[in-house]
């Protein structure tokens, strides 16, 4: 019918225009920085009030924060999800954990930052450091990992568990040898999403773990570190125009990392949904 064709055309034009604008912006930002990326840019320290040198400490720092965050959120998140889907039957604790997870997922990242400041930096005395920032990011990413793992575990057919139990395996053996391995690939997808979020996160790091400008590597986890997103913030909002080439290069590097992660997630998801369809 004519009206359907008009609706489809109209809605299609809007959707594709939107997508084109976004693609254009991403491409623009990635390409703008490409000229400034060189091996030297990637592996040297910033020099001369950030106008020369590179982003090596920010790359390294991002990696430190990420490692600490995952060290906390992957085990706690996956085990919490295992509890939710395998060990709890409609109990009070289950409802509490589910509700807590939903609420955590909605809390703004800057509020996690304040919590991290108050608990890790001040109460525990870690100060502004890699461990304060990393743990803060870890707590922030907990709900991503729990929700996704919970979903993956519930997708494992009941017959798997029954077959394993029927063969004489106990609960732990069934859970950790059968159910978790069966959903391993989907759990990993969730972890990659969390990695993407942690890598791009800025606000909570500003007052828990970020150094704006360092000229040597932190000597341990109780020292602050630079990170790529905070570096981008500092270069664009605090330093004058003459650092723009460095800013463009940093944005490019961060976008390339994040886009790679999210494309890999998209590919994995597509493969998983094909597997389900058989």
């Amino acid at each position, binding site marked *: 019918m004519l009206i359907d064709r008009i609706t489809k055309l109209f809605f299609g034009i809007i959707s594709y225009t939107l997508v084109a604008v976004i693609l254009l912006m991403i491409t623009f930002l990635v390409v703008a920085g490409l000229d400034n990326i060189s091996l030297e840019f990637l592996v040297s320290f910033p020099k001369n009030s950030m106008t020369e040198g590179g982003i090596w400490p920010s790359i390294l720092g991002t990696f430190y924060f990420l490692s600490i965050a995952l060290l906390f959120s992957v085990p706690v998140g996956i085990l919490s999800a295992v509890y939710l889907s395998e060990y709890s039957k409609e109990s009070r604790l289950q409802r509490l954990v589910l509700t807590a997870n939903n609420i955590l997922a909605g809390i703004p990242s800057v509020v996690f930052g*304040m919590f991290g400041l108050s608990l890790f930096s001040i109460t525990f005395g870690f100060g502004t450091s890699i461990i304060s920032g990393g743990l803060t990011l870890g707590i922030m990413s907990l709900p991503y990992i729990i929700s996704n793992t919970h979903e993956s575990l519930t997708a494992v057919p009941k017959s798997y568990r029954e077959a394993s139990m029927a063969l004489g395996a106990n609960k732990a053996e069934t859970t950790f040898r059968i159910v978790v391995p069966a959903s391993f690939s989907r759990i990993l997808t969730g972890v990659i999403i969390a990695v993407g979020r942690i890598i791009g996160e800025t606000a909570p790091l500003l007052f828990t773990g970020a150094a704006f400008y360092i000229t040597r590597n932190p000597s341990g986890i109780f020292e602050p570190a630079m990170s790529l997103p905070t570096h981008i913030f500092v270069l664009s909002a605090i330093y004058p125009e003459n650092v723009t080439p460095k800013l463009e290069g940093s944005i490019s590097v961060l976008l390339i990392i994040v886009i790679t992660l999210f494309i890999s997630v998209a590919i994995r998801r597509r493969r998983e949904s094909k597997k389900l369809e058989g």
Partner: protein
Amino acid sequence: MRRRRLDLSSRVLVTIAALITSTVLFGIFFFLISDGVRVFGKISFADFFFSARWYPTYEDAEYGILALLSGTLAVTGLTLAISIPLGFVSAIFLAEFSHRKAHDFLKLIFELMAGIPSVVLGSFGLKYVSKWLMEFFPMKVWTGLNVFNASLMLSILAMPYFVTLIEDALKAVPVDQKEASLALGANTTSTIFRVIIPQARSGILNAIILGTNRIIGETMVVLMIAGGATMIPRSIFDPVRPLTAAIAGEMGEVELGSTHYYALFMIGVVLLAISLIFTVTAMRLKRGMRRC
């Protein structure tokens, strides 16, 4: 024996993990509230919530959050006005009109869009969009960093969220409803607007609530491009300082244990309360959906 011990210890282990998760939530409330309420030792409740004067670094410091709150409202309102209609149209196109290949392609771009770090959007708005705005509306705009610029960039963050959640809500409508409508001779367009959307309305409302919650809590974009002025905006081209921007901008330099420090924590409590209300409302709505 060993097998039974392993069985028992893994039960203990997962329960501990679950307890940690719930403790974290209580910890966040505890730490924010216990620091936040101390501001009321120095400032009256009414001055904090109903004064628009936020001058924490003045000699006679004032801590009224009304202007900050109005900044958050202005930016959130304009972002919703931009991103909900566009997200809605794209979600309908994805759910009802696109073929598989087009669907997969569009979906991929929306997923990428959701992955753009907010600091990158902040930087883009600060370095480029602000200049374009000055050139485009030279009469009206006195600063490129304003509500409009921040809302444009926030819309990029919020849109994929709306698209995904609204599409899910539309797809959750049973297909026989749609088929019945088509079989009665209705065209696809009126089926969408008269049958599918009304049926999906609680899912759509849920999407809007969750999306709004995210926009309110977004920090980097508003910190970098909302302008930072503590004033109640009169036009969309006025600069503002939303709640999250005040926290992120001032927390780094504040003296621990000062009134300013506690005031910032109280703002954190306000944000926490807002997100709690939104999330619980969304959860209620979802439970209601499942029941019928």
